[in-house]
């Protein structure tokens, strides 16, 4: 059974659902409230587009910690009925229903019970740690099927059904039948793992659409060999789900590989970050041990026990993608929620005395297949991680990426934008084609530029001074050279000086290029004349504005 809370990041901000609100990550909308959806905003919009649809929309930055902490309430409710819950991500949880269904009188009865209970809990005024007492309103979908992926699809379907929320129960063995009428993009859940790139998945569905295969049923009717030949392992996992077989790990390692990593915390830790620190060490031991044996695990069971004997266990989906820091973060979320809800409900007391990490569903590690053509490769991810570290050292503004903006003057054409505002992976995908041909001698001229009248002619100077340096341009008689209103130099420049340096003789010069910008605007009006000057100190671009010469750029 899968419990799916729709738009959980938006719900976790504890704002009322009718209020238009979007959660953004790297300037793109990833989640939105009901109120925002009514205005026509959708996922993938930029902030600007969202504000164009609804100017009063509230923009909130993505924060996984907040989502996870809020989700603990829902998990606490679910755990009243079920012993062990697996968290796929904040907003999604799954558990096997074999035992609990029998206890509560059938799958459907359990689902109805859970639905009512979660909606009641969310409707109660439950105090969240920092935001004070408030309510969580969310739309909850429950789906039951043979395997976790089919159940996820069923849970999402139950939300889309009109009318009162009803859990969808798929009978045993009828998964293929249930899925056959759905559009083919629902199979994306089967392919989502650390081993494939979003680009390859989107491409596969695009090809299938254009071939006329729009529903899962038609996809399942294709011959297996053809699907495997065309799409490879990606197509295979989607095909398996379409025909009703789950992609559970098939080659489980032998039971003697059961290892667990335990640490006793003495004296018992009252604060969550102390436990998180221990968790990082344990997680690194876990990774080292598993990779040393050539194994990988798809889930991690985190067990924490207080000195009063209360114990909490939670399964976290791993898929080989979580680093030691990620596991420590999940331990922190688990304990945060547990300690805050538990203390208020009187369920736990004291400090955490024992922490144990148990890898679950251990399989032989087949390694990660990096994308061949385009897609994010290793270098980009390493670079992003290093830039995160530098950001932590120096602050968010210290790391910038040059972005093409287009403009007339040199400092406008490329601007340095802080890395938080740039979606590096999207950039990498869109420019991936141009780089696969290897180093060439062609000049990589910036693409798609409009004709900016008054632009400096190519080649562009390699050094653009952001703080202009005063310069002096003198003619043979010792007077400063000017440019008339008709764009004519008043004299031949003979020597020049940059800043307070020494005088240089001018060997060649060219110009002037005059531009007058925004003549109608009293404030933005600029009249400039540019001259290229070659002297023994190099070639420079000098600008005359308001009677004063400045060094704008150097052709270094």
């Amino acid at each position, binding site marked *: 059974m899968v419990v799916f809370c729709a738009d959980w990041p938006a719900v976790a901000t504890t704002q009322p659902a009718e209020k238009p609100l979007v959660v953004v990550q790297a300037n793109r909308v990833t989640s939105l409230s009901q109120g925002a959806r009514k205005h026509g905003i959708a996922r993938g919009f930029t902030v600007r587009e969202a504000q164009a649809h609804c100017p009063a929309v509230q923009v909130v930055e993505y924060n996984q910690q907040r989502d996870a902490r809020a989700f603990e309430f829902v998990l606490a409710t679910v755990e009243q009925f079920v012993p062990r819950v697996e968290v796929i991500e904040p907003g999604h949880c799954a558990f096997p229903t074999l035992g609990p269904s029998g206890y509560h009188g059938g799958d459907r009865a359990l689902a109805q019970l859970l639905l009512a209970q979660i909606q009641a809990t969310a409707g109660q005024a439950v105090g969240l740690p920092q935001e004070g007492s408030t309510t969580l309103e969310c739309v909850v979908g429950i789906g039951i099927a043979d395997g976790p992926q089919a159940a996820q699809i069923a849970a999402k379907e139950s939300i889309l059904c009109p009318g009162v929320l009803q859990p969808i129960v798929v009978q045993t063995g009828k998964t293929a039948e249930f899925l056959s009428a759905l559009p083919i993009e629902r199979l994306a859940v089967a392919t989502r793992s650390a081993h494939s790139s979003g680009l390859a998945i989107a491409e596969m569905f695009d090809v299938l659409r254009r071939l006329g295969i729009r529903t899962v049923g038609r996809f399942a009717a294709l011959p297996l060999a053809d699907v495997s030949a065309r799409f490879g392992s990606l197509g295979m996992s989607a095909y398996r789900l379409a025909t009703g077989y789950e992609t559970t790990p098939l080659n489980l390692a032998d039971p003697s590989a059961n290892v667990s990593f335990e640490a006793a915390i003495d004296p018992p830790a009252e604060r969550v970050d102390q436990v998180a620190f221990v968790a990082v060490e344990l997680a690194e031991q876990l990774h080292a041990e598993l990779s040393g044996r050539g194994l990988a695990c798809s889930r991690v069971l985190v067990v924490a026990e207080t000195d009063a004997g209360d114990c909490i266990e939670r399964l976290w989906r791993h898929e080989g993608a979580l680093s030691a820091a990620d596991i420590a973060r999940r331990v922190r979320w688990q304990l945060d929620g547990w300690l805050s809800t538990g203390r208020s409900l009187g369920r736990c007391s004291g400090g955490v005395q024992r922490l144990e990490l148990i890898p679950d569903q251990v399989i032989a590690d087949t390694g990660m297949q990096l994308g061949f053509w385009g897609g994010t490769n290793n270098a980009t991810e390493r670079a992003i991680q290093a830039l995160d570290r530098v950001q932590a050292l120096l602050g968010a503004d210290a790391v910038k990426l040059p972005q093409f903006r287009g403009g007339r003057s040199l400092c406008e054409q490329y601007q340095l934008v802080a890395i938080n505002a740039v979606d590096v992976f999207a950039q990498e995908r869109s420019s991936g084609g141009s780089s696969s041909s290897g180093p060439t001698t062609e000049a*990589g001229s910036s693409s798609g530029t409009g004709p900016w009248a008054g632009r400096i002619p190519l080649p562009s100077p390699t050094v653009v001074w952001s703080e202009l340096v005063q310069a002096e341009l003198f003619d043979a008689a010792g007077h400063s050279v000017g440019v008339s209103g008709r764009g004519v130099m008043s004299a031949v420049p003979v020597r020049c000086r940059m800043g307070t340096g020494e005088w240089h003789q001018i060997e060649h010069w060219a110009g002037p290029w005059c531009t007058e910008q925004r003549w109608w605007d009293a404030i933005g009006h600029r009249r400039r004349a540019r001259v290229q000057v070659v002297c023994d100190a190099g070639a420079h671009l000098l600008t005359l504005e308001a009677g004063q010469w400045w060094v704008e750029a150097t052709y270094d």
Partner: protein
Amino acid sequence: MGVADSTRSPAAVAELRKALEHTRPVVLAEQQRLPLLKAFQDVFPGGGLQRGSIVHVGGAAGATAVALALVAGPTQAGSWAACVGLDHMGWAAAAELGVHVPRVAVIQTPAQSWPNVTAALVDSFDVVLCGPQHTPSPQDARRLTARARERGAVLMIISGETLGIAQPPRPWPAMADVELCVVQAEWFGVAQGSGRLRQRRITLQVGGRRSLSRSQRVELWLPDISGAVAKADAVQAVIPTALTPTALLMEAG
């Protein structure tokens, strides 16, 4: 005596050489080198930037352009480059010379954290460009060199004299593996008040430590008439000298 003769005979030597070929450890040379633009492939041994090497680009004028042209090859092939202390870079020129600008990151750091930041960058980036704004102490320089060698990153230091308008540059305290010095740079296309800067012919003096590079002089068009980098002995005989004046001149006085 007979034994000494047999070990020196040409047949025996040839056999030993063949055995050496078979037993030499295989190191994929392409992995050890970052690719370069075609014009630079003759300048560096093996046709690429050796990973873990320190490259120093300096000279009278044109050092920045040479450094950008060197970085163009690796960024086009997928490596990332980081720039520290190069706040005044002209990115339009970088894009024209072939640098894949979406794979470049610019870091602005105060002088006291420069060694730590550069060390963190050398760990993960393939190319790190250091500008003349900061200069490390000799100990820091040695530590960075060792780290770059260990991680296989290329550390490129730019110190041009023209950049010394604002403040005088100080060169890297240690000797680099490859030293590129722009000895002569000549612009074509401008005359007295007419034309515009079109192409530049530079003469690079290539030197360096150990046998990593032989001392030689290379002539390049950087940029040439189309904006790219090319070798100067290619057919570029047409150098536009007499251009029609585009602006009238008025005598003063």
